């Protein structure tokens, strides 16, 4: 919006002028304050240069100066769509660092929350993707209708709609009441019906297929080489899901499948997410069946909950990673034996998945760049940190 220069790239009279367009940081569909410098030849993209940092709010610096427990609410604000998944990863990393055990009920609660988050994220992402495609908000609104129902549960359990701050080292902050579980059961029961409706609206829609199929194809070897993770990787047909590979928490107890894409285009990324939601519903059903009364936090952990300053993990390092809805969310922690971490680093899937943006976009039209960005599913809070 701001710079208005038309650059003449070459002096050859047969060459057409390329147009340098600045998408963002204020742009309706850059999902926040992301910026792309796109060079266009007519409507065709010649090059894309992502520019980020407009939401670089120094998460790592601030976290290195807080107690371990006080970092938890900050992780909520990383990927603000799925605070529970962020909490999960951080809790795992710290538990690895300080060797804390987690009781079984807490594990179940964690899995339930993480999978609910996955539903929230995927359904919203598809909504936003459709928004980028130009559907006038309807899919987003249907998605947010379901999201509101799930957020109501988050609010009842953790106290906040978005910034849950719910996980603690060695468990979770509060127990989940039976009424809440019943509410979750109800939502999980109804969710497939909603998905069917959502799919009827979208999946076979000719315009959506036209726009999405064979656009932004990501070959599997490039995907692996560029460290792409999450649904984007699986849409390219690479079978890698950290829930299966690392078997963290209690994921090995549930039977679920990993949907793998065919071609790795935008449409596959869309549909893999739909299938993943169906698998998440399966996990949720099993978890809701399997959850038993018990402790929601390890008794040893309660002592440092009251006084976070006394929580001093031994000197060492740990890398905890979870399959967040966006991809591999990793936390790298180095402890120096004091209440604050010496080094705290977030391996953010949004940032790394963007590596291939230019490869995907070049040769396509402007409109495609936007849906490719939408299908990669970035969140600026996590990208810039």
């Amino acid at each position, binding site marked *: 919006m*701001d710079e208005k220069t038309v650059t003449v790239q070459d002096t050859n009279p047969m060459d057409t002028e390329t147009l340098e367009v600045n998408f963002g*940081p*204020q*742009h*309706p569909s850059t999902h*926040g*304050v992301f910026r792309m410098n796109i060079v266009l030849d007519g409507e065709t993209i010649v090059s894309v240069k992502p520019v980020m*940092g*407009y*939401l*670089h*709010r*120094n*998460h790592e*610096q*601030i976290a*290195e*100066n807080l107690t371990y427990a006080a970092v938890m*609410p*900050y992780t909520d*604000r990383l990927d*603000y*769509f799925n605070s529970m998944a962020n909490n999960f990863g951080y809790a795992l990393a710290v538990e*690895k*660092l300080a*060797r804390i055990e987690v009781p079984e009920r807490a594990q179940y609660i964690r899995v339930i929350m993480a999978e609910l988050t996955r539903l929230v994220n995927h359904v919203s992402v598809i909504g936003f993707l459709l928004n980028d495609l130009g559907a006038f*908000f309807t899919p*987003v*609104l249907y998605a*947010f*209708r379901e*999201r*509101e129902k799930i957020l109501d549960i988050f609010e009842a359990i953790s106290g906040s*709609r*978005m*910034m849950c701050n719910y996980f603690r080292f060695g468990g979770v902050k509060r127990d989940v009441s039976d009424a809440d579980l019943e509410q979750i059961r109800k939502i999980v029961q109804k969710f497939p019906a909603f998905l069917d409706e959502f799919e009827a609206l979208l999946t076979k829609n000719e315009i959506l297929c036209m726009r999405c199929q064979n656009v932004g194809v990501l070959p599997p070897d490039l995907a692996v080489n560029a460290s792409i993770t999450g649904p984007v990787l699986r849409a390219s047909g690479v079978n890698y899901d950290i829930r299966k590979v690392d078997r963290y928490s209690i994921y090995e107890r549930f039977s679920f499948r990993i949907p793998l894409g065919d071609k790795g285009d935008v449409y596959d990324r869309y549909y893999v997410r739909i299938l993943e939601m169906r698998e998440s519903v399966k996990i949720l059903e099993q978890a809701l069946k399997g959850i038993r009364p018990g402790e929601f936090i390890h008794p040893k952990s309660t002592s440092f909950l009251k006084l976070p300053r006394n929580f001093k993990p*031994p*000197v*060492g*390092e*740990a890398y905890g990673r979870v399959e967040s809805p966006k991809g591999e969310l990793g936390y790298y922690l*180095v*402890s*120096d*034996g*004091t209440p*604050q971490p*010496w080094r705290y680093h977030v391996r953010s899937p949004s940032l790394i998945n963007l590596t291939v943006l230019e490869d995907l976009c070049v040769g396509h039209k402007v409109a495609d760049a936007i849906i490719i960005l939408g299908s990669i599913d970035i969140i*600026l*809070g996590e990208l*810039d940190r």
Partner: protein
Amino acid sequence: MAFAKNISAIDQGIKNELAQKGIVIATLNDLYNWGRRSSLWPMQFGLACCAIEMIATACARYDIARFGAELFRPSPRQADFMIISGTVTKKMAPLLVRLYNQMPEPKYVLTMGACAISGGPFIDGYNVLRGIDRYIPVDVHLPGCPPRPEALLYGLIQLQKKIDSQEIEKCEWYQKGLKRVYPVPEYGPHGLIPKYNPEVWRPRQEELRKQRYGQPILTGKKTKAPHLDVVTTAPSS
């Protein structure tokens, strides 16, 4: 000026009296304010977490459309007010100021969430602006992290109240030669130049945070590095 004030005071008195008797007098001023108040089109851009709650406000549960404010305009030229929904970083602030300058009068700014008001939880960051009101005037501050969608609606109602209290002959945008365009700060070696615009904002004397904590040196506090080499036992995974 005092004379005009007097007259409007008398006007108000008469109007109240008549309103009690069930007679509503719509003056030009009322019509003007009513029109602007009922058709507040926000600018469509989100900065961070609060943006999601802003979208939620536009969605079915809360439906900002009921107030006639659902037409999020992507172009600043067509927007009436700006919802600054999220952390304003130093890298983003110049663009925000520019966007504000591009909006047509009358324009309003609503800061949503702690980050936009003061830097919020990220106040100590090296790249975080401590409140957008350092560069542009803000009409409504809405605390919370993030504020609930209802709170945003509440903020909108507050903004409507503010608009209602304005008078057409005193509106600053109709004053001659006055155009609310603020210079855009530049990137400097440590942050923005200038750090704030003294025309809009001045540091407070009673700044509690500074009194209590000084300016915390965030990085550079620790002086002893851990020696990972001596760690022998691996953390069990």
